[in-house]
């Protein structure tokens, strides 16, 4: 164990009173197991296969602070503001603390009447300890990993969303995650989403960074989707070069459920997204897609695992990267088909364009199959823009820069088209276009959030 880990082990041991005092019972109950794991294993070492391209340990070497006393940094009105003005239920996660804007309280009451629970996981765990405890940290067990353990050890708050059986929510819940601390700090938001049988809901998570100091967020999101349920999860990252984002997302899907995950990285510093999906009921369908637009020295590493544990499930995976300048992209995707998971259909595609001379792309699409009656494929390619297409556009009087932008836009459009909310799709298209033009994609602010 090196000093990197031991400093956090020391903090935990020394301040465990503070951590437990500030935490709530349900979350406190899991801390010790997580700590034991972390003590034994530490962060993945620099040669660990799963973290080949993201050196986790080095990230934690930086001198970040841990906000164990839950000190509130001054917030400004400017903070509560969204970049994707769509018709949605708006809420905020500032560093680790959950906020509900005053003006949207009325809308939330409508949802509450249907039995929907939404809010801070701290509060919910106090109000409904049994409900939260029956899901909290349940998606991990054998799958524990250093980042999840770290989060479980230190996390104090996060987002909780519970949709009872049969409830349909048409508009998405928009959760805006902002880092606001004025000192370099680590936040450990912990999110939990439960979608009951026959229910329908969608969540849009936007990550922003307003402060200009180094920040590291180590998010864990657990999602449970019931039978015949519909769930969409969109994640949009638009932060800055100083932010490090580590995200662990785990999804458990029951029979005949339909889930869409779309993970979009427009602007960031260093990101590592672990996405793990367990298809646990027959007839479950998963669409997992994502795109990365990278320039300067952005680093984006997506790692996905799709486990087909039962027969007759379908998974479709599509990830696209456009890498400019000296940005670095990594994609590793594993499709696992268990022994008796017959009639599985699993498709995985990863396509990348390296535009910058110093751009790097590492891709590892993997299939692990133990059943014979399956249709599985994966494809990956890394290349440049099609010269003939570029020529075609230029010969029709479109300037080179514009033509390149058009082609790059068309390239990632496949991913955007998967978005099932029209207004969000339009908005994202606009943001992506602005991004390619090098304009700020940040919203100037409109009535939606003022």
């Amino acid at each position, binding site marked *: 164990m090196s000093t990197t880990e031991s400093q956090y082990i020391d903090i935990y041991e020394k301040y465990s009173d503070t951590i437990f005092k500030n935490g709530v019972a349900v979350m406190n109950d899991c801390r010790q197991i997580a700590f034991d794991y972390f003590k034994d294993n530490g962060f993945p070492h620099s040669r660990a296969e799963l973290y080949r391209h993201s050196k986790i340990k080095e990230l934690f070497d930086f001198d970040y602070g841990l906000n164990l006393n839950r000190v509130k940094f001054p917030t400004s009105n400017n903070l509560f503001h969204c970049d994707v003005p769509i018709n949605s239920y708006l809420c905020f996660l500032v560093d680790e603390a959950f906020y509900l804007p005053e003006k949207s309280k009325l809308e939330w009451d409508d949802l509450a009447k249907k039995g929907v629970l939404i809010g801070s996981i701290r509060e919910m765990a106090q109000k409904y300890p049994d409900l939260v405890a029956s899901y909290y940290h349940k998606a991990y067990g054998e799958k524990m990993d250093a980042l999840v353990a770290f989060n479980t050890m230190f996390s104090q708050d996060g987002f909780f969303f519970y949709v009872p059986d049969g409830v349909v929510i048409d508009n998405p819940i928009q959760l805006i995650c902002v880092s606001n601390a004025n000192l370099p700090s680590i936040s450990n938001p912990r999110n939990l989403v439960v979608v009951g049988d026959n229910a329908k809901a969608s969540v849009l998570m936007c990550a922003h960074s307003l402060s200009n100091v180094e920040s590291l967020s180590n998010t864990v999101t657990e999602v449970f989707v019931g039978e015949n349920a519909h769930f969409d999860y969109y994640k949009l990252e638009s932060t800055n070069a100083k932010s490090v984002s580590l995200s662990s997302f785990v999804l458990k899907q029951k029979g005949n459920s339909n889930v869409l995950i779309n993970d979009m990285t427009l602007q960031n510093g260093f990101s590592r997204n672990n996405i793990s999906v367990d298809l646990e009921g027959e007839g479950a369908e998963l669409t997992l897609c994502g795109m990365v637009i990278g320039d300067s020295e952005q680093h984006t590493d997506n790692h996905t695992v799709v486990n087909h544990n039962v027969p007759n499930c379908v998974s479709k995976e599509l990830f696209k990267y456009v890498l400019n300048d000296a940005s670095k992209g990594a994609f590793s995707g594993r499709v696992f088909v268990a022994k008796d998971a017959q009639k599985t259909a699993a498709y995985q595609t990863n396509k990348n364009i*390296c535009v910058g001379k110093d751009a790097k792309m590492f891709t590892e*699409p993997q299939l692990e*199959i*133990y059943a*014979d009656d399956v249709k599985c494929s994966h494809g990956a390619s890394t290349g440049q823009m099609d010269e003939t297409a570029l020529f075609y556009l230029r010969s029709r009087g479109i300037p080179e820069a514009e033509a390149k932008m058009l082609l790059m836009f068309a390239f990632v459009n496949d991913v955007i088209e998967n978005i099932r909310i029209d207004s969000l799709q339009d908005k994202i298209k606009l943001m992506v276009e602005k991004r390619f033009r090098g304009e700020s994609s940040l919203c100037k602010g409109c009535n939606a959030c003022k």
Partner: protein
Amino acid sequence: MKNNFVNDVTDSDYKYGFVTDVETEVIPKGLNEDIVRLISEKKGEPDWLLEYRLKAFKHWTTLEMPEWAHLSIPPINYQDIYYYAAPKTKESPKSLDEVDPELIKTFNKLGIPLEEQKSLAGVAVDAVMDSVSVKTTYKENLAELGIIFCSFNEAVKNYPDLVRQYLGSVVPYTDNFFAALNAAVFSDGSFVYIPKGVRCPMELSTYFRINAANTGQFERTLIVADDDSYVSYLEGCTAPMRDENQLHAAIVELVVLDRAEIKYSTVQNWYPGDKEGKGGIYNFVTKRAICKGDHSKVSWTQVETGSAITWKYPSCILLGDNSVGEFYSVAVTNNYQQADTGTKMIHLGKNTKSHIVSKGISAGYSQNSYRGLVRVAKKADGARNFSQCDSLLLGDKCGAHTFPYMDINNDSAVVEHEATTSKISEDQIFYCNQRGISTEDAIGLIVNGYAKEVINKLPMEFAVEAQKLLQISLEGSVG
């Protein structure tokens, strides 16, 4: 009926499972510095080679066996292996008459063209039994062209400068655990040197056979193709049936200079173990080629049907500009066999190209993995790669896995990878049945069609053998 197909998959016997009754000279079991010195002494090696071995041995003792492969390997006791076993024959036979008749019988059983094919096919054969190269045919004819084709030991004696220059230049002893082990204890192998501008008029070929019990085979092959030369090299492997597992850890190094080409083909049919997965060879081989010169080319073709565990990645380092690397592979696993095989293409030069075709077939309880790496270095402008790896599953208890890695550090590279996994479709079988082809024949037909793309790349004789091997390996696998 369907189940029979799976259950019967393995009814065919391993036809190479005989032991040759030749007196063998072995040295004590186990591995230590003295054993390394003893092997070197037996071979009458010069000091520099002994030193090389000792350095490798010292390095090996610092290493641990790697565990990253998708294989379950029972612990290997490296002290329980004979590291040297030589058939006791008279000193360096000059003609076939001098070779032990028992040995000739063995090779005849194997169908090795030691005698007959001398005139028929013009194949020059170097047969390596256990650890010693037995006889190299056709040497005189090759010598006229300046081609050197001899056992490794002979090469050390007669062409020390050449060997010293290239030995370990592609696979250094520090490369990996088994490379270090081999470098310490290798006993013989083949050496080929094709001089400038010479196109080798015949296919060179080596047969490897492990005969004595409890021996490991650690041969070393070194092929150097000088400017503008060409050679096609074949390698075949068999072993007798034994209960215990035997270790085979070889090294193959290919050096290709300007505009030269090496075509390296392997038909690997080591004893795969019985139907319960008992016994069989552990085939842990390091094979690597370096395209040193501009416009050079290396082509690996392999048909892997044997071995209890196959763990190898024939690789190409494309250093010269415009060099080309190719890899064609069919890997068949049955019963409890395991294979983790694939290739590495390291693009360093400009405008380098590589092509990978890998076909995996798994049946019974076997596990078959493709693992490959395509790396494009920062300065390798205009690199191009296409990889295709397909898996065919026969039966619901086997597994097929794909682990490709693509590391692209250059923006002008075009790298593509495609993989599919499926079983033989009922439509295809029905189509054949309808035309009076039995299900068993239909499967043979479909499997052969599936592997055709690779088998076509083999030299003619080998292609016939490979096709037969495929059929035998999957015989009875119908239902």
